[in-house]
């Protein structure tokens, strides 16, 4: 019995150390929230609604979008390394397990990142501008959409990471992907702010379904939107899931041909 207590204690202390470290990194997110709160306040000055968002909705949108995007645990490097030094060969026997293994590993980290980020940010925002009219009944659906968004993000990231079978280092692609999430993914501002033509394009690309859609549903829930987003997320997940699978299989074959 004592042994389990020790394990629990170590994990608890570990998470404290992790929390300390995390706090430093969270400063960036809090800073962005603070700056954008000031910026939006200036933009709104007096206005009630902009494109259907109130001031506080806009800030809470940002928090949600940021929490999703920044919670992504970096496994690109890890996969790169595993591919480069052939470690992946050892994990070949159960092909789909390699991908699922990374999925499970990164997801647990991601949930912790997301939760901590969101809670920290929420405290700050509530203090700065208060809350908004959150529909409690949407919680379940929201969690579902969040899960799908993170899954989609995972598959896109994984495809990029697995390109290291061919490229020496797919970090630059990862970087471009991040930038796309920031902009047309709607992380910084909702797509409603874009000029119409850009918003239309962004609205079909997968990136906006990772940041924009979940964040918008969070602050402005509607069942119609929910079903739309749900359907498209599932579609993209299937598409990128297949892409990941194909890249993986091709890459493994290449590895075998080249002798690893």
């Amino acid at each position, binding site marked *: 019995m004592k042994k389990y207590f020790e394990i629990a204690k170590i994990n608890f202390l570990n998470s404290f150390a992790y929390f*300390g470290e995390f706090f430093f990194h969270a400063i960036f997110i809090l800073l962005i929230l603070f700056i954008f709160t000031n910026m939006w306040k200036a933009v709104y000055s007096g206005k009630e609604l902009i494109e259907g968002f109130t001031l506080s909705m806009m800030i809470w949108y940002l928090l949600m979008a940021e929490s999703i995007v920044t919670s992504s645990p970096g496994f690109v490097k890890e996969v790169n390394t595993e591919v480069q030094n052939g470690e992946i060969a050892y994990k070949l026997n159960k092909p789909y397990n390699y991908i699922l293994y990374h999925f499970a590993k990164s997801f647990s980290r991601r949930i912790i990142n997301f939760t901590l980020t969101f809670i920290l940010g929420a405290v700050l925002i509530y203090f700065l501008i208060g809350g908004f009219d959150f529909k409690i009944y949407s919680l379940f659906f929201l969690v579902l959409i969040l899960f799908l968004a993170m899954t989609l993000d995972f598959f896109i990231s994984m495809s990029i990471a697995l390109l290291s079978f061919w490229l020496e280092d797919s970090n630059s692609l990862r970087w471009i992907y991040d930038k796309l999430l920031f902009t047309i993914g709607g992380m910084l501002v909702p797509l409603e702010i874009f000029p119409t033509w850009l918003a239309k394009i962004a609205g079909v690309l997968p990136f906006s379904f990772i940041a924009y859609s979940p964040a918008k549903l969070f602050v402005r829930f509607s069942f119609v939107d929910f079903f739309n987003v749900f359907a498209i997320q599932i579609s993209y997940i299937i598409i990128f899931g297949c892409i990941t699978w194909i890249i993986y299989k091709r890459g493994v074959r290449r590895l075998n041909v080249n002798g690893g």
Partner: protein
Amino acid sequence: MKERDVIEVNHLNKTFKIKHKAAGFLGSVKSLFKPNITEIKAVDNISFNIKQGEIVAFIGPNGAGKSTTIKILTGILFPTSGQVKIAGFVPWEERTKLSYKIGSVFGQKPQLWYHLPAIDTFNLFSKIYELDEREYKSRLNYLVKIFEINDLLDIPVRRLSLGQRMKCEIVASLLHRPEILLLDEPTIGLDIIAKQKIRELIRELNKKEKVTILLTSHDTQDIENLCKRIIIINHGRIVYDGEVESLNKEYLKSKIISVKFENPFKSFSLSGVKILKSEEYFASFEIDLTKISVKEFIDFIIKKCSILDINISGTPIEEVITKIYQQK
């Protein structure tokens, strides 16, 4: 002409106040308000003088106060009490002026820029030490010739072998004609031939230019080959300061004798004799000269067994030094 003292150390003391803090963020916060301070006496009343042109080994186990002393000599640390004069300067007060007189080579911390050819670092040093252009060029040529690194000058340092790199490091430290050279592990990681070459060069340098050399090295061959004098420091104090030769004599109280037998070896016990290793037809012994003489041991062993071959060797200097380290 009497050679002057180029390094004078008098009653040097250094005590550190160390704050103990617990790991992590909370620990740091706590130590701000309630610090837990202990005092450590790193250097305890050290005195020694070194004359110009001497090559002195300065060794001690890790944590003995060696690097603290070196830091004080180079002016990076100032002492709690005591006097030091290097080339006429008080190190921590006139560090800049002193830096022109001292050169240093740290085996583990290279000064050459890794990805550039050595010549670029040399040129940089010439500007750092504000060397006159013409003098620098002639000095460089001279050193390049002696150290035979002409072909290596334009190759990026990271592509040089360790031995080649070391030669370049030493050249870099000599460009400004220092009076004193600090060598810390100069032959570490080198193969036998490279080691010998480096030692040769150092000896030659010392002979030609009368550079005073302070060598800190865990390689006892370096010490035996280069140094006449050795200072051993332990627990912050000098435990030996004298000739390397005398070291053996003073601490040589044992000999190692290995014997090959005709018949299978049967163990025995004899006062003053320790069996180091034993196989079926072979054994090696360490005999304590205070308890039994070499003659006595040989007489004994011949009577006991039939001997094919016998080998008598002194205790390697490493063991002598280790013994000294272990004292107190």
